[in-house]
Structures are given as structure tokens and as C-alpha cells.
């Protein structure tokens, strides 16, 4: 695969909530309270639908401030039943477990899992997470053998300035454990992508960006992801030559992220 060709997921993309120690600990005091009542047991997942897929370089239309969600996506390769994965994971040592479970992963890819800010994790966040272009993908998948996921640190920059380092050694469920725990209740298909989760900053917020900003997400050994944000065109299109709709500090409004416009 050439680094010049954009890569987009071929299957369904699953995001993972609360998979970083820092955010989990910040949430812990609230977990026993309404409406949550208890800490999550199974991985908390969400689907990033195909309308969200956007290639590197996309100008993602945003209605206002968005949260940057730098993450690593595991691209599922081979097909194997839940049982094989689950039973292998129980029967073998931790090291073999990791080798066996991750054998299903063809490679990994940097992703910006964008979201509009939302304070509650009680109901699914479709309106915040599933907007067009809200899953921007780096241009190439890197084979797993070339990457030590646990040692990976993902750097996030906005307009060239550092805003966050995402440390994958601080995952609640590491890649192999997450894949095994998800596979225990559903089968990931070849081409599906499992995102390891996005981390918050020390204060519990996520880095934010707005129309006109340029986001860069990079990690050693992986294809770098850059994209921009642009003011969303309002539902009622202004007449030709009219100014961009308010709500963003945008330069030029865009109609489409270009991935799948027909």
C-alpha cells in the first residue's frame, strides 16, 4: 500500500469509551450514582458509521467546537470465531494470549475519532459522534509486528502547537484484552476496526478545535494523520456569494468531506 493513497475502513468501526486510566479514575466517583448505578463491566462500545469515514487531509465540517479523539485503530484481518479467541485466551499464558488474540489484527492505524462535547455517557451519543467526517483516518495501515502498542505515545498538535500526548501504556484494557473481551460477545468481521479509546487531559476535558484549525496526529512508526476543520454549511443553503454561516470562525465553508459524496 502506498503512503500516498488514502485509507478508509472497509468494515464497521467500533469505538471504545472510558478505556484510559486517567478518565476512568476521574469518572469513578460518579459511577455508582444515577443514572449509571455501577461501573461498566463489559467494554463500552459505540459504532462510527460509514458517513463518518474521512481520509487524511479532509476538511471536516463542524458546527462549533469539537473534541479531538486521537486513537489507534486495530484493523481486523483474519476471521476466527468468538469461541476460538475466548477459549484460547482462557487456556493460555498471558504472553500466548496476546499473540493468539492479536493474530486476528492485520495492522493498526492512527485515527481522529471526533466528537461534539457531551457530558453524559448514559445514552448513545449518535448526534455527537456520528456526524459526517467525524472519523478521520491516517493514510496507511502499519503491520502489527512493526509496532509495540504498549510503548506507543501518540502526539496531538493543533495548528502546529502540542496539545496532548496519548500514552497507550495507560489503557484500562490493553489491545489484546479489549479484543478478547469484545470478541466474547460479538464477532468482529475482517475489515472491521476496533478503536482503543481516546484519553482526556488532566482536567477531564478533551483537546478542542474549531473551524479553520489544522489537526496533526502522529506516532513513531505510523503514518501521520493531518486534517482540517471547516464551518458546516447550514441546512438552508445561503444564496451564491453569501457569507459563511455564523457559528464558526471559518474561512471557506465546505459541503462534503469528499469521502463518499455521490
Amino acid at each position, binding site marked *: 500500500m502506498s503512503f500516498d493513497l488514502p485509507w*478508509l*475502513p*472497509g*468494515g*464497521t*468501526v*467500533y469505538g471504545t*469509551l*472510558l478505556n484510559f486510566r486517567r478518565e476512568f479514575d476521574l469518572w469513578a466517583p460518579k459511577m455508582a450514582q444515577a*443514572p*449509571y*448505578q*455501577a461501573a*461498566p*463491566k*463489559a467494554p*463500552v*462500545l*459505540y*459504532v462510527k*458509521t*460509514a*458517513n*463518518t*469515514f474521512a481520509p487524511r487531509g479532509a476538511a471536516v465540517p463542524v458546527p462549533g467546537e469539537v473534541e479531538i479523539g486521537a486513537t489507534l485503530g486495530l484493523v481486523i484481518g483474519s476471521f476466527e470465531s*468468538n469461541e476460538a479467541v475466548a477459549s484460547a485466551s482462557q487456556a493460555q499464558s498471558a504472553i500466548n494470549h496476546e499473540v493468539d488474540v492479536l493474530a486476528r489484527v492485520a495492522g493498526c492505524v492512527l485515527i481522529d475519532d471526533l466528537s461534539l462535547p457531551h457530558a453524559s*455517557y*448514559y*445514552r*448513545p*451519543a*449518535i*448526534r455527537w459522534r*456520528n*456526524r*459526517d467526517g467525524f472519523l478521520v483516518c491516517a493514510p496507511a495501515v502499519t503491520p502489527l509486528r512493526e509496532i509495540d502498542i504498549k510503548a506507543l505515545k501518540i502526539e496531538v498538535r493543533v495548528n502546529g502547537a502540542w496539545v496532548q500526548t496519548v500514552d497507550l501504556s495507560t489503557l484500562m484494557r490493553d489491545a489484546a484484552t479489549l479484543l478478547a473481551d469484545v470478541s466474547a*460477545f*460479538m*464477532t468482529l*468481521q475482517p475489515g*472491521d476496526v476496533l478503536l482503543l479509546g481516546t484519553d482526556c487531559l488532566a482536567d477531564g476535558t478533551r483537546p478542542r478545535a474549531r473551524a479553520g484549525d489544522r489537526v496533526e496526529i502522529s506516532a513513531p512508526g505510523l503514518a501521520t494523520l493531518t486534517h482540517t476543520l471547516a464551518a458546516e454549511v447550514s*441546512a438552508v443553503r445561503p444564496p451564491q456569494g453569501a457569507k459563511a454561516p455564523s457559528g464558526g470562525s471559518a474561512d471557506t465553508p465546505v459541503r462534503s468531506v469528499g469521502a*463518499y459524496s*455521490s
Partner: protein
Amino acid sequence: MKLARIAWAGAVHEAIESDGQLELRTPAFRGRRLSFDEVVWLPPLAPVPRARTVLALGLNYADHARELAFKPPEEPLAFAKGAASLIGHRAFTVRPDGVQNMHYECELAVVIGREAKNVKKGDAHDFVGGYSVANDYAIRDYLENWYRPNLRVKNRDTCTPIGPWLVDAADVPNPMNLRLTTHVNGVLTQQGTTADMVFDVATLIEYFSSFMTLYPGDVILTGTPDGVVDCPVGSVVVCEIEGIGALQNTLVSESNRTPSPTR
């Protein structure tokens, strides 16, 4: 017109309903008729060039919301599913060992026909390709209050039967006045009407398309009325929507995933 996708004679075929039979439309066998018993029924959805978006609604019938002790939502309670959970008519759904409450949910499935973005309610029906029947099984044992209903409840292999038919939207003049029923082993357990949806089909298309593009072949499962009951292994569950079809499904156990098919 009622469209089906079926497997027969070593290949997948598109077929239409004709006088109680399936009439094949694939070139090699065009016009050949088969009985409903001769084929394997697949989800009646043509392949799409990207992951299919499957959106689903919770608490979209006021009576069902009351049944579950919830106030009807003020905004659609929507979640998304992976298309891999879809299976066809007359198929088998796995009930995990040891669960206490696994229930069907008979739902009108809306299949998008045209790319839809920022569609107004009044135009929404122009963007519907057709309708089908879905059974959006839920396993309440696995409910957690994090992005509820969570995927462990709603995104399981084999747990979203859909079919038998995709009925042309043109043949469904009023999708908002269709009787829904579910029979378990021949006993009526659920009945309602699409007239009781909290957010009707047009409103849902306006809502979703206000922030996301819907593509041809994408599916919206519009929620279920009250009358959901736990179904043990062996239950034959038939979800029927007036004018759309009767979707049959059989529950099997984890330890017996390949029963001999019974008709």
C-alpha cells in the same frame, strides 16, 4: 413489489414474490419459480460499497416506554449497530446459556433509497427505498447504563433477523398505520400499530439527516411497541407487519447452534 435475497443452487439470487412463490431475477435463472421452502433466506438488502449503517430506536412507542418504566424521550433515543448482526428469515438466533430475559422486538425497518442529508420531514418519504420487518432482539441481563442500550445487549451475532421481503415504498401508501404482531409458538404476545410511534418515519429521517448523511441501503429500525416477553430456547418467533411480511426466527442454545432445520 416484494424483493427477497436468497441462497439457492450454490449462489445468491435476487427474487420477487409472485403468487406465493419466489421468482428469480438473476439472469441465469430469470423467471424460474421456487417455493419458499426450497431456499435459504438472506437479509433482503443489496450489498453496499461501504459498511452499512444500521440505526435503531429505543423507546419509540409510548406504550413500550411505559412498559419499561421510562418517560417517552424528547429526542429520538438512537443507537447504531454493526450490519454483521443481521440474519435472514427462517434463521436461528443464539440465546446465550444462563440468561434470564431475552426478548424479541418487532420493528418496522426503513431502508433508505436515496442519499439523504438535511431532508425536511415533508420530503422524507421520497428518500425511502422500501420497508421490511426486523426483530431487534435484546438480552436484558447484559444491560448497563453506559451508552445504554449497550452493544453487548444489542449488537450480537444472529440477534437481528430481518426480512423476508423488502417491500417497495411505493407499495406502502401509509407506513404510519400498519398493525404489528408477534406470535411465539403460535400464541399472540405483542400487538401494536406504527401509528403509535413517538417519532414517525419522516421525523426520524429529518432528525438523522440533519447531522449525518444516509446512503442507499442504510437501515433504520424504528422501535417496538409493548408486549415483549422472554423467549426460551426452541421458541419459534414470528414478527409480522401488515402488508410488509411475517419474519420467522427460532431460538437455539449456545451448546446446540446447528439444530436440524424444522419447517
